[in-house]
């Protein structure tokens, strides 16, 4: 029987693959005839398109002029933003009170940034949020502490978009989780109720839900009783989003093995504790990516409320563009709000990646 000597582990290194810029280019851009042609074609297209775009965006653009100067300029007319920023962002909200929605938005962003850190997720954070939401509501609505009352029909622009989407997401998520649990319930009544709800909601477009909430729903209410239009749209968005979240969460629940349920049960944990402490933390983590996908589209879908005549960010922008003075500059205006939407949606995806990384950190190497 032979004994093989163990070779010195340090002596053998993996072969070098990276050999400077040229090596990288050869490996990634010019490995083979087809890839080389592709690289050249793409470089040509970039050379043809990027410089004119840069010229239009920045060099030939006008920034802070009146509309007349825009017609003379060759580049983008960012003046349309500059001159109408307050209407685009705050819409019909009384002009001299617009610091209030601004403050509310700043407070919201501050809270969101503060909550990014998972170590701050304590019970006190919940109270902080409740207090924050109260202050935001107070700022928007007024009527207390000497703040002038602003009717909610005047709420518009970015605050409205954020209101609909943030509340929509925050309320839809737990509702969706409940629906997912209900759909897996052993009690037939609960189960079928959840199945019917989920399948019905997923069977209709959000637009029709919004229509129903704004046109049909009031018909069923007793005379004299009205429910705020924003609230109705909000409920429609929550109901819609929750159904989608429910299906995603259900997928996550199915991925958890029976052994996890049994281990939790054999410790004597009751149903709520078993779900909260063992099953949901794992299931919800698995479905972070598709959940964020749904939240991102829910955020963008809030723009559909224009069809029931709510003045969200998209609608305020459209109103500016219907002003004859600014009529021709829709590209600039839409690029601007696209940028706002992008920043919001990107922050969401970025945060979800961070969360996924952190939650997965210790587990399974």
């Amino acid at each position: 029987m032979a004994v093989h000597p163990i070779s010195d582990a340090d002596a053998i290194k993996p072969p070098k693959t990276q050999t400077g810029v040229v090596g990288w280019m050869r490996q990634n851009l010019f490995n083979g005839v087809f890839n080389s042609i592709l690289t050249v074609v793409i470089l040509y297209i970039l050379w043809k398109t990027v410089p004119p775009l840069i010229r239009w965006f920045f060099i030939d653009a006008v920034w802070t002029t009146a509309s007349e100067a825009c017609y003379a300029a060759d580049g983008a007319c960012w003046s349309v933003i500059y001159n109408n920023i307050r209407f685009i962002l705050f819409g019909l909200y009384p002009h001299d009170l617009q610091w209030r929605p601004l403050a509310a938005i700043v407070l919201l962003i501050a809270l969101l940034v503060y909550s990014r850190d998972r170590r701050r997720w304590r019970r006190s954070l919940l109270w902080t949020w409740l207090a924050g939401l109260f202050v935001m509501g107070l700022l928007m609505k007024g009527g207390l502490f000497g703040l002038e009352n602003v009717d909610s029909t005047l709420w518009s622009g970015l605050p409205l978009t954020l209101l609909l989407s943030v509340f929509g997401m925050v309320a839809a998520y737990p509702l969706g989780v409940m629906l997912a649990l209900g759909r897996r319930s052993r009690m037939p009544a609960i189960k079928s109720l959840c199945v019917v709800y989920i399948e019905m909601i997923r069977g209709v477009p959000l637009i029709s839900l919004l229509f129903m909430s704004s046109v049909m729903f009031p018909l069923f209410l007793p005379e004299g009783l009205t429910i705020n239009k924003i609230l109705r749209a909000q409920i429609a968005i929550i109901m819609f989003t929750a159904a989608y979240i429910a299906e995603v969460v259900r997928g996550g629940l199915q991925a958890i093995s029976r052994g996890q349920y049994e281990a939790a049960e054999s410790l004597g944990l009751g149903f709520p504790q078993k779900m909260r402490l063992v099953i949901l933390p794992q299931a919800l983590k698995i479905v972070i990516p598709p959940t964020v996908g749904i939240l991102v589209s829910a955020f963008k879908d809030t723009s559909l409320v224009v069809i029931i005549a709510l003045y969200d960010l998209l609608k305020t922008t459209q109103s500016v563009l219907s002003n004859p003075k600014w009529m021709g500059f829709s590209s600039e205006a839409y690029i601007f709000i696209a940028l706002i939407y992008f920043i919001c949606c990107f922050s969401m995806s970025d945060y979800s990646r961070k969360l996924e990384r952190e939650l997965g950190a210790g587990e399974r190497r």
Partner: protein
Amino acid sequence: MNETLIQDAPEDSPIIQIVGMHKWFGDFHVLRDIHLNVKRQERIVICGPSGSGKSTLIRCINRLEEHQRGDIVVDGIELTNNIKNIEKIRAEVGMVFQHFNLFPHLSILENLTLGPIWVRKVPKKEAEETAMYYLEKVQIAEQAEKYPGQLSGGQQQRVAIARSLCMKPKVMLFDEPTSALDPEMVKEVLDAMIELAEEGMTMLVVSHEMGFARSVAHRVLFMDFGQIVEENTPEEFFHNPQHERTQLFLSQILH
């Protein structure tokens, strides 16, 4: 050593009483007329061919499976649909699974304190102290901050044992605790179980580990086709099996 262990089983009321118990999966009669009394501090090893109903039997004891006929009384509480009673019994009955079933999203320490904190309402600090005590006992205290996925199979199974012990159970059920392990890790888990046995824990162990059965069991039960076919002391069971199915089974596992 065998004799002394048998003698220290006291003669008072049984902790588990199973009388005329039947269970079906659909039309499949998986457990037939099971009668079993387990005394306090008694240690029983259950063996038998695959599919004979061993797992189902011990899973009925903490109601992971529901029996359809007969009675099961654990520590004076009868197992019925009463969910409060079921949870009470589960808190007193520890269970160790073939595939460990640790909670992968919690650290080892959190795995061990979960039950005591939420079921027994023990303060966190005290629960952690107990957890560290049992981790030391199964000799993996240094892994407390790690996650289950970072441990070997043998270590995970020892954590699973410690997790059950933290609930201070009156009975421990083991369902083939070593059969998912690599051979070199079997011993460390068996050693932990033997130590537990020596401290007088009441144990029901589904296992084919002869050596373990010989050194700690008071009784060995042999199951086949959902019935308890034979039961005897380990010595008699292995050297002088009565039933022909037992003989056949033993000849297969002892090749």
